[in-house]
């Protein structure tokens, strides 16, 4: 006897372990999510680098437009410092000249005032018409803060009549010639700047 299957055909059934299928679906989800995560991370990172590039370019443009050559700036600083050093070290004579000339009485005159070769001493040859004025002047020099020591190299009384060799002029007038060596006080020079 021949049998006939009258039942409706069964729907094709997906064969396989449900665990395997679940794993495959999970793998699909993980891999897509991973790609999305890395993709977005890299995009963000790329954006950060793009902004670094933009900032760098604007910094370069700013330096080129608003800045100045570093070599030029360094040369300026170097030259400026060298000139400032020379300016600071150059001898200042006015603080020392001030007492030598300033204390000189009206009637006295200077035959010679000069600085010694080593620049540490002022030498002066002065002529006074009044004895007391010469002594007073020397005392003032000794007390002058700009001068460390006052050395009287020579002091002599001279007859003006003899010097002029004018025998017709009756009255003998005397003058007092003083030669002094004045050691300079470097501290005063610094204060006088």
């Amino acid at each position, binding site marked *: 006897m021949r*049998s006939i*299957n009258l039942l409706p055909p*069964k729907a094709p*059934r*997906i*064969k*396989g372990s449900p665990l395997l299928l679940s794993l*495959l679906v999970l793998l*699909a989800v993980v*891999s*897509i999510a991973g*790609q*999305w995560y*890395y*993709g*977005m991370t*890299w*995009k963000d*990172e*790329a954006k950060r*680098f*793009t902004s*670094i590039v933009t900032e*760098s370019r604007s910094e*370069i443009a700013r*330096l080129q437009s*608003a*800045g*100045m*050559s*570093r*070599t*030029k*700036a360094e*040369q*300026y600083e*170097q*030259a*400026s*410092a*060298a*000139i400032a*050093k*020379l300016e*600071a*070290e*150059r*001898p*200042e*004579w*006015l603080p020392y*000249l001030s007492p030598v000339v300033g204390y000189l009485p009206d009637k006295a*005159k*200077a*035959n*010679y*005032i*000069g*600085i010694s070769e080593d620049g540490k001493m002022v030498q002066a040859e002065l002529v006074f018409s009044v004895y007391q004025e010469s002594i007073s002047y020397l005392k003032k020099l000794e007390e002058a803060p700009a001068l460390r020591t006052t050395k009287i190299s020579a002091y002599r009384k001279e007859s003006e009549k003899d010097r002029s060799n004018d025998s017709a002029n009756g009255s003998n007038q005397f003058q007092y010639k003083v030669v002094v060596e004045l050691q300079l006080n470097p501290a005063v*020079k610094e204060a006088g700047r």
Partner: protein
Amino acid sequence: MELQMKTASAKLAAGKKGLDATVILVIIIVTVNVVAALFFLLPSWLELRNGRAEAALEQQNVLTAQAQFTTDIISDEDIGQLANKAPFYPKDSGILLTAVKLAEASKAALVDFSQDSAFSDSQSDNLLVDPAASAGAAEGERPAAATGSQVTSQPIRITAAGHMENVLQYLRNVQREERLIAVEQWSIKLLKEADLDDDLKNSIYINPSLPVYVLDMKLVFYSLPAYAKELGGEVHAVSEAKPDELDALKSKYGKLSWDTAANK
């Protein structure tokens, strides 16, 4: 028996269909991943790689630019002030003009202006100045030779005549002059009446009835020609006299010894 065989055959067919579906799923997953990698992940990676390389390059360029440029701007005014102290393009005529102007400002007569060759021998033409060594330098020491700045010094001897207050004023003016001048040596001597020549007697600044003094100075003028290339630019400032100023000087002081220096 035959029914059992049919049932087994149907089961086998259904089993094959189930296997195909798993493979299809795997293929779909792989395809989706590959497509996503090609069209989404790979461009992102390439963008990142290029961006990183470009950023590194630009950062290197920034470092190069920072090495070449600085934002500590030094104004032209500052450079001009430096040039006024020590010109980048030194000229003898500028020194002469300074000496004359100072003499006139002091109401003293300039008697002589000369390049001091003997003095020059004792001076180094190019001073190497080390700014760092300046601190604590003892008085009277010459600038130390060291790796540092190059400053050129030019020794000049100047003689001026006038009354005491005027020669002192000249000395003061030299030390207060904008241009850096060092007074290395000086002396003030009373001029005897016999030594008063007609030029001095006729000078508007000299009253022959009053004591006349001669101020003799050894000066050093400084300049910065080594810096002219970088800093010189358009700054010529006071380093040279204009032709009309030179003509005026020559007509006024024509006989003096500086003619040769000015003509150099």
